[in-house]
């Protein structure tokens, strides 16, 4: 087996495409993730995130293009999968096996597992491994897959919406594990539809929409993407607040009624709050826009 060069990209796709009948699930996706990076793969439901990951794992065959894991073609799983660990979005286990039996199986068949670290992870994720898989909630099944994946210390972790079933405490533990993995130099390919999760963990993100990679950007640019929606209800009309439009970071000032204003805000909120302090504000709400809203803003058309 050829040893991959240390500089080989952890993930590389060229013109990757997958068509299911008339549906184009992934179109012409070219992406490179260098080793050691924590890469966020963002997109709304049905955008093609899981399909891309399944193509990367060789579970699906691409209609066009190719994918490589550390320069090993994705289809050659015996080579490519020596250097990765995977957590699916929806973890299914054999119902009659216990959690420990599932973990032993994955460790025994997989490319190698740090058993001491695995025991530590079981503690941290508060998972009872002696229960049969059929008694596990979806969150607990996800924990089994997460423990198995982190314990391999594989150079590449492919995580497909791994926190969808976890509670906030476990999400925090998950983020700590990601940070430890990044410190050890592992590459993380994290798919998610939650901006906040990606923002906390990742150094670079790719955004996929309707099967197409529409943006690959660093975290600083992501913060620019991140704007707040401000809604203020006034007790009395305050025409002088028109000047809000001139403040830095404010865009798209709207007046649905004379006593309600809405605006989009990027950057620190201080100037807007100072301006509002002079008016008679009855109710103030600041809300992060959903990923979908950002997409609508940036790409100017509704989702399919």
């Amino acid at each position, binding site marked *: 087996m050829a040893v991959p060069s240390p500089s080989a990209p952890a993930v590389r796709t060229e013109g990757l495409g997958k068509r299911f009948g008339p549906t184009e699930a992934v179109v012409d996706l070219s992406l490179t993730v260098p080793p050691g990076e924590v890469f966020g793969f963002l997109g709304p439901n049905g955008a093609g995130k899981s399909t891309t990951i399944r193509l990367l794992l060789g579970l699906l065959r691409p209609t066009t293009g190719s994918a490589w894991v550390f320069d090993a073609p994705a289809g050659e799983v015996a080579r490519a999968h020596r250097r990765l660990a995977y957590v699916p979005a929806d973890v299914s286990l054999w119902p009659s096996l216990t959690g420990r*039996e599932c973990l032993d199986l994955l460790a*025994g068949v997989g490319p190698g597992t740090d058993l001491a670290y695995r025991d530590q992870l079981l503690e941290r994720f508060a998972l009872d491994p002696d229960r049969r898989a059929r008694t596990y909630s979806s969150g607990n099944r996800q924990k089994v897959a997460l423990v198995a994946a982190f314990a391999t210390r594989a150079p590449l972790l492919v995580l497909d919406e791994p926190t969808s079933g976890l509670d906030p405490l476990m999400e925090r533990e998950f983020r700590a594990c990601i940070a430890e993995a990044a410190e050890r130099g592992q590459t993380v390919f994290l798919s998610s539809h939650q901006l906040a999760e990606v923002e906390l963990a990742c150094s670079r993100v790719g955004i996929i929409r309707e099967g197409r990679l529409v943006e690959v950007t660093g975290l600083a640019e992501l913060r620019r993407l991140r704007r707040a929606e401000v809604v203020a209800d006034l007790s009395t009309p305050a025409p002088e607040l028109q000047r809000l439009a001139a403040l830095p970071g404010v865009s798209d000032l709207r007046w649905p009624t004379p006593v309600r204003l809405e605006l989009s805000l990027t950057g620190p909120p201080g100037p807007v709050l100072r301006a509002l302090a002079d008016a008679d504000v009855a109710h103030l709400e600041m809300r992060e826009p959903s990923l979908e809203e950002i997409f609508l803003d940036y790409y100017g058309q509704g989702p399919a």
Partner: protein
Amino acid sequence: MTTRTPSRPAPAALPATSRSAGRAVTGAAVRQVRRGTAVVAAVCGGLTALVVVQYRGLDGAVGIGSLTALAENPAIRTLFGPPVALDDPGGFTVWRTGTVLAVLVGTWAALTATRLTRGEEEAGRWDLLLAGRLRLRSLVARTLVVVLAAAAVTGAAAGLGLLLAGAAGPGAAVFGGVLAGTGTVGAALGVLAAQLLPDRRSASGLAVAVLLGGLLARMVADGVPALGWLAWLTPFGLLGRAAPFATDRPAPLLVLALLAAVPAVLAVVLAGGRDLGGSRVAGRDRRTAHSRLLTSLPGLALHRTRRALGTWAAGLMAYFLLIGLLATAMTDFLRANPFFARLAAQAGFAQLGSVEGYVSALYALLAVPVGVFAAGRIAATAADEAAGRLALLYSLPVGRSRWAATEAATVAAASVVLAGAGGLATWIGTSWVGAGLGLGDALAGALGVLPVALLCLGAALAALGWAPAAVLPIGVLPAAGGYVLLVLGDTFGWPGAVRWFSPFAHLNAVPAEPVDVAGGLGMLAVAGVLALAGCLRYARRDLLG
């Protein structure tokens, strides 16, 4: 589903909504059974009609002396049920096809019942249904009614087949009623097992085991006069007691209805007081001792196969032990009654007069369960794939063809063990009655059917590659379809070119005849090509789930 509460309550509309919720659930269940019902009904109607037509072709009446001898022979009674009204086309058809069709209809109904109840519940689809207006008990009751009705349709089809082929009306009605009753017993057992056990596979196993246990009970009842009353407790025994085309007794039909009603009522009652997803007999949810097999691919394959192998081996050994115990009674009888030996030869059972001929004829039957076992194991792999259980395994450095080959090798080895267990049980039985069959002959005959079972394995692997949704039906085709093809071909004197397509045409009656080496190797080669092509295609196609 139409079980949403309307946002603005309209009191007059509520009863209508509730009714349509029930109707929608019933409709969904009907959609899930209709294709299978149509296939089983066509087999029942078609086979009975064919055999009636075949009997007319025999052209010779069965002598009354032969008839009496046949009825009194314990071996005949044990294997095929009490032969009555053999001088009537309908009566002969019931004797020839009754047990086979009853097993088919009962097993199919039981498997359908567990699929529609525990299977749907396990997949989480009932969570959605029960979020609406319906309660668990009424959902179980409605599904039960649909499966009972489907089972009744198949019985009616068999009766109709007899009628259309010209058999007598009352006899056709009684036989149709017994088959429908057997199906409803299977369906009720399936729904009951689904309330008792937490997963579909074990519920199916329990229901089918109880049903086929009834077949063994019938064999004991007909073979041991003191235990004759056992026949009243099993659908297969009641088939003989109802005696279609002879006495056409209605009382056994009433008992059969009772046999179906008890588990049906029990199932609905038990459904009322349990949690969704829970079961009456809860397995242990925790287990600290863990299997040491589960650290490698072959270990996993072995772990997945061993329980199924144990269950199948126990059932087959019980059956073939009985076959062995009957050896001398059967061979003595056939030597004394050449007419029946001729009849048996026409049905594909040649040389029944010697113990070797007798066991080799029954070993041909062994190919069917071993083939079904092999195809069933590959079907379980396909089901794991559809449920997404293989995604984690395939994220390891495990090629799909490697896993499929590991599974196939394990299943092939298990098939050898299963066939060997059948041979061993036969030998134990024949030794017990001193029939003079050597252990080597007993094992050689049983293992001789393996090419057919491995052909099933090959077909199932090909289906895994090209048609993963139909692994079981395609996989059992070489054994079950081939057997029917050969029997029909022999009966109607079809040309050799047609018979050639049946794998059984390439098996010799071992140990009565030497092994057909060329035929066996040919089948193994076909099985190997199918398996190889299936594994390669499996590795190249998209993974489901």
